[in-house]
């Protein structure tokens, strides 16, 4: 059972997420890390394009890290989460959907062609990844017969869901990359569109947006642990240590995948998602449903 964390955890959660994102970015950069870039962005003057819709840009850039932190509220650290909502899985999905709105707003706001293209690319990407993604997380909820993240963790005290739902786990990892528009799915902020949705951002706006993307990646990777990798369950070590280890492993895999796989064009992933991933996700859910019914 997942216990509620003390109230101060609400204040600590964003700091922990930022630290984790910082560490991930440092490992990914294979050098001194993002410190100098963060300082540069903090002191940089904002560049404002002509006829920009500034409130929408501000809203979009702020919404991205906020959505990531809110999604992390249901994330159990060991066996404690800030709030173990009865519908935690739906909550997570709803918060990541806010990222759709955030990226589109950020792309739309600056009144610039390339950033607009980036924003629309993310909507296309969202349509491609969301359906298999929803089916994958629903499959995990189905295996635990509950939408509560704590119950999903409890159901994996014996066998991890990743073992007997490998297809759902694989689809989840793919969509975790797509959700954070990162690695092979970085077309919405791609170099071919001069930075895409982030192209016109500078200063603090850029820091919030790109930092929010790292937060989203960390949260998406960390959510794979309670959903498919048994949460804090494991021998010898305490629950929190297992959570950290497993999250680091998932993040390490995603970093590795980024270096191995080139950027995917969205229409190619769209066809793959609808023609291959969605049917096999439905088949996986069917298998799990039959097992649950027969249990």
């Amino acid at each position, binding site marked *: 059972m997942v216990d509620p964390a003390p109230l101060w955890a609400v204040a600590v959660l964003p700091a922990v997420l930022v630290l984790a994102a910082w560490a991930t970015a440092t490992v990914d950069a294979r050098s001194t890390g993002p410190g100098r870039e963060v300082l540069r962005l903090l002191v940089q003057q904002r560049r404002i394009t002509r006829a920009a819709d500034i409130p929408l840009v501000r809203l979009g850039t702020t919404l991205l890290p906020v959505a990531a932190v809110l999604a992390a509220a249901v994330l159990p650290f060991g066996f404690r989460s800030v709030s173990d909502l009865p519908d935690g899985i739906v909550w997570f999905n709803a918060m990541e959907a806010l990222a759709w709105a955030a990226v589109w707003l950020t792309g739309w706001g600056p009144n610039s062609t390339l950033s607009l293209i980036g924003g*629309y690319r993310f909507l296309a990407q969202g349509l491609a990844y969301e359906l298999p993604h929803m089916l994958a997380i629903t499959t995990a909820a189905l295996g635990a017969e509950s939408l509560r993240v704590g119950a999903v963790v409890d159901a994996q005290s014996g066998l991890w869901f990743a073992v007997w739902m490998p297809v759902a786990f694989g689809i989840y990892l793919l969509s975790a990359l797509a959700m954070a528009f990162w690695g092979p799915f970085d077309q919405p902020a791609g170099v071919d569109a001069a930075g895409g949705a982030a192209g016109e951002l500078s200063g603090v706006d850029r820091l919030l947006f790109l930092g929010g993307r790292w937060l989203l990646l960390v949260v998406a990777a960390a959510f794979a642990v309670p959903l498919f990798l048994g949460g804090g369950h494991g021998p010898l070590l305490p629950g929190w240590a297992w959570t950290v280890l497993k999250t680091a492993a998932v993040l390490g895999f995603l970093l590795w995948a980024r270096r191995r796989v080139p950027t995917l064009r969205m229409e190619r992933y769209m066809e793959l998602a609808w023609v291959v991933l969605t049917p096999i996700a439905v088949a996986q859910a069917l298998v799990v449903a039959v097992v649950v019914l027969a249990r």
Partner: protein
Amino acid sequence: MVFRFDSMARATFALLTALLCVGGELIVLGLDYLGIATVLMMTIEMAIMAVFMIMFMMNPAGLMPMTMIHNKRGAAVICALSFALLVVGILLAPWPRRQGRAPADPTMDLGMSLMGPQMLTMLTLGMALFATIVATVVLATRRGRYDRFGDGLQDAPPADPVRGGLGR
């Protein structure tokens, strides 16, 4: 907000804010699942709707000032009047006291009272709506399978302007 905003993007996201508030109200009523599902569905829906609204409006860029409404003054009067009417109704209506206790799972009870006796109707309706969506898309699509695979459906691979990801 519709009276204030002159861009379709802002109006869309003002509407999304209103719908998110509806989700919040559902959560306050104790219907957690419905509230969160409303937030999820409305966010995705409005994001997609923004594409269509901007695609089909007169001013595609949407950044030039334009008005969203006709008969601005009349509409404002109607809005103000109906708002006042609703507020008066809320304040003056004799609300009944709560009888009994809230059920353990209000979402389940709401679902049973809404759908319980009419499950067959709802399922039929759902299938009919889904069939309508599929039929509309099939009718609206410009390139059908005969355009892709030729008159005898014999051409492989199909003649697509943009190739998909599977090499079909």
